[in-house]
């Protein structure tokens, strides 16, 4: 089949793999990519539960505005889309739960 837009995914060279954890479970990441990207690749789409209705939420705006992708790092609420993955980073989901 003719492709005017070729698949270039194999031409992308990524940095070395590191391991982070999400709620205690190991997640493979490439050093320096956003934590949101690493979690998305690993299939962890639900990053937190919303307040009031407790509904699952995940990365939405990908640019640090919507605050949907926030996670807890060492007790601090942090946007996972603006946080670079490093080896051993412990990431925890936030569960606001239904009110």
């Amino acid at each position: 089949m003719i492709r005017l837009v070729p698949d270039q995914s194999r031409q992308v060279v990524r940095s070395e793999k590191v391991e982070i954890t999400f709620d205690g479970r190991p997640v493979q990441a490439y050093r320096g990519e956003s934590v949101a990207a690493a979690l998305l690749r690993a299939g962890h789409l639900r990053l937190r539960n919303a307040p009031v209705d407790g509904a699952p939420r995940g990365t939405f705006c990908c640019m640090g505005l919507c605050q949907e992708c926030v996670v807890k790092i060492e007790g601090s609420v942090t946007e996972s889309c603006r946080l670079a993955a490093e080896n051993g980073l412990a990431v925890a989901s936030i569960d606001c739960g239904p009110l």
Partner: protein
Amino acid sequence: MNATYDIVVLGAGPAGANAALTAAKAGASVALIDEGTQPGGQVWRPKSAAIVEAPVTPESRSGDALRKSVAGSGVTLMPGARLWQIERPETVWELQVLAGERNVPLRSKALVLATGAREYVQPVPGWTLPGVVGLAGATALFKQELMVSGTNTVVSGTGPLVFYVASEIRRLGGTVAAIVTPNSRRDWLGAFPAMLQRPDLLARGARWITDLMLAGVPVHWRHAVTSVTGSDRVTEVCFRKVGANWSPDGAEQMVKADSLCLGNGLIPAIETAQLAGVPVRHAPELGSWVPETNEDGSTPVPGLFVCGDGAGIRGVAAAEVHGKLTGNAAVSWVAGRNPKPDAKLVDVYRKSARFGLAMTALSIPRSGLQALTTSETVVCRCESLTQKAIRDEIASGAGSTNAVKSGLRCGMGPCGGKYCQTAVARMIAAIDGRADAEISPPTPRPPLRPVPVSALAGDFDYGDLPIPKPAPL
């Protein structure tokens, strides 16, 4: 307090970076602050540190050239910095900037705001499910991480962005389940004369669409996504045909997918300009409400300039030139001279803007799209407020975005109203039978971005707190 810069520029995208470069070249002392790790903004967003090597794209090429120019200039670059408060107590702007984990105050004589845009997403049932990302948001993932949002993605929304996103998904190894766009082929035909201003971009767009058609990707013209289903992530996306004003009027169709990219045009990010006191006006052809801005970036507030998409969605080519014109004007203002606009640059600006405005015209949501938001749809994501809750508040007399905000906390959550206020304003206009131009955006309040208390508290331990001895009994 740090030294006073001649000019501080907020936002290092094509507009802001060019304003900074132009001003620095003219001899001004310039600081350029941006949330990102490097200049480029959203459209030329840099790759993350995880990308060692990747094929060059027009965006990466332009972004790399810009980053090289800034690095080789006299501009003081402050990456990873977020402005959260602006004041001008006397004659000098005083800015509070969160840089890393610290708060850094900055001072400048003139201030250039190049805050760009955010996207409008018409709320539909299920749009809060994990796996749904913004259409523009998806491009951030492509450019920064060279990654797609799922294995099988529905791409839906208005304007040229749907085709760019679908094409990039294919380039990055993903699969496009379907394209759903309220635009008709005739809408696009109408934009053709303006697109001839930029034959290069026209050819690129034609290549995306031809490739998608050759690949057999279903393109549903004049359709809109009406709901997203799944328990903890997207599994199905439903869509319907829409009428001339884009209200859904056809039978529901369904496609299986694990991801949805959804967006309905860009909106100028005006909160910073509002906070600095610039009057705003309703200009639907420019995306929504815009700060009153001239071609040289000047505004009714002396020493305050706005350029790029933050002054109206005219696109990247116009933003670059608008930045240059604004850099010139800001330098002249600092020197107390009348600005001498470069007639050639103004001409390029107007031509580029014509192309950009045609793309904006295709992207602006029409009134019927509001019908996609059902009564149980969450409109304010931060506070999980449904359309019904907001509608009841409006019906009980809340006739302004500020009133809805104080009544329900709608827009007071962590995102600061960035993803609900446009929808709320349109709801008020529709329910009260008033014009969109009568429903102004809410008054922005600092902090413009979330600020951790630790950044403001400074360096001390709890034990250092002076606790007075209890009074003797």
